């Protein structure tokens, strides 16, 4: 019999949904991507723990036409009005920039979870190109005019900071990534 009766069909539906667990997991492991529509809640990034915790901290500043540098809060100034998803996306692009030697910096280098590393490969691939895209630059310029009148350059840096457990004052700050985005329309 090719078509199952109603009871069998209902049972197959239940089994099919449960089978999504290994299926989705296998796809994810194989492709390094989260399929969509997916039924996946995020597995948190991991780091390391001994006496200290190492955290990557973003610093963003904008340089105006007089050469003056102004600090920018990447979350409230630069990305105001954005929903959380593009906010995270943009900060991921920022992190996937080039370092001082011009090498591509892996996204979330502080993350040791294999899954997160693989998912970041996609960000790293095109992050810098996307930041230098005319559309992105135009958007960033438009956003930054809320901070300074004539934004010329956006400087994004990521530093690693060591924190002692129980304290939010960094023991040391080591700049790892510095990325400059020219904002002038030309």
């Amino acid at each position, binding site marked *: 019999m090719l078509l199952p009766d109603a009871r069998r069909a*209902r049972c197959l539906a239940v*089994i099919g949904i449960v089978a999504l667990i290994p299926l989705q997991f296998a796809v994810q492991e194989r492709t390094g991507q989260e*399929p969509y529509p997916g039924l996946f809640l995020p597995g948190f990034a991991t780091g390391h723990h001994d006496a200290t915790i190492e955290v990557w901290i973003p610093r963003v500043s904008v340089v105006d036409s007089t050469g003056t540098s102004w600090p920018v809060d990447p979350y409230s100034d630069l990305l105001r009005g954005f929903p959380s998803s593009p906010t995270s996306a943009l900060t991921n692009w920022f992190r996937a920039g080039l370092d001082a030697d011009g090498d591509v910096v892996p996204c979330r280098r502080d993350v040791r979870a294999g899954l997160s590393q693989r998912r970041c490969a996609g960000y790293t691939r095109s992050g810098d190109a996307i930041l230098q895209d005319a559309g*992105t630059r135009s958007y960033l310029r438009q956003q930054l005019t809320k901070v300074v009148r004539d934004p010329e350059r956006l400087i994004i840096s990521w530093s690693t900071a060591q924190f002692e457990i129980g304290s939010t004052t960094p023991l040391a700050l080591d700049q790892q990534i510095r990325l400059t985005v020219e904002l002038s329309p030309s």
Partner: protein
Amino acid sequence: MTAAVGLERACDRFLLKEYAVPGVSAAFVRILFASWLLAAGAGRVLTRSATIPASLWDPPLGPLRLIQHPPASWFVTIASIATTVALVLLFVGYRTSLASAASGTLLLAGDAIKNSYGKIDHGLTLIALFLILMAASGWGSHLSLDRVRHARPPVRRHWPVAISMLFLSVMMAMAALPKLTSHWLDPSFSAIQVRQFRGVVGFGADAYLAERFSRLDGLVFWEALDWITILFELAFILVVWKRSRMRRLLTIAAIFHLFVLLTLNISFAGIVFVYAAAFDWSRTGRALERQLTRLSDRVKVVGAWSTGISLAVVGRAFSAGSFLVSETPLFVAAAIAAPWLLQSVVGGTRGELTS
């Protein structure tokens, strides 16, 4: 009886009986859920993506890979308005099944587009699926304009809630598996502590108790949280088959989500409405129904439409950026869940939520 027949019977019991609640209870959840979605500006999910540069368009593995560019602005506008209209119809209970399916489908599409800019959020998928599934549940059988119109009452079906609970359990299991196969349980560090600390010092997730929480030391404490999280997430797929156990776990989950909000500043507010569908709210629903029967049909119709439209206007006007960050349901759900859980542990399960 063969094992196959036994399995089929167990599936039938799960789908058709296990999560059965009266129609008035499902209707009450429908009204609460639609109210929140409207007031939180759910219809604006798409419009908030419209300002993002097209250069960020990079859909994940899925159907949107077939589309090279983000949707046109006219499509975004129409889809956004249609979502809000469908949610108003769901709230008032006018052609409820169609409204439920339409609002779920539009939210799922909006979510898929929103997730195509570099990062996937996870707060909306189950909500959208739930709305689509509940279209078949007949949750417009009470407290609805369909009822006032004396249209033929819809057939009540209980499998949509059961399937929703199953999807929820699959989601939770899928959250646990990557943790198990990565370094989440590495005893040399605590994954939650690092995530929590990074939130506080790295990107300003220091609201509520987060900053104080980050100062707690003790690897045993943090490592225990790592384990508890995974056990909690895996528990769903084990207990979903029995309603009484699932309800107890759902009340724990409501408190868990509030704890996550307070300490990690991560909000999964909408999910508590899906949880609510597994409980029996018929006492509250009937009380509301009794109040409404005192009103004339004309007043009911005018009142329902004006309330629904007002919620939509408020949501669209004032809630930009706040969807899924609207945290009130988490506080309310935890406030309801905590005494219920205490009562169920101390004195057996009685009362509104367990009938």
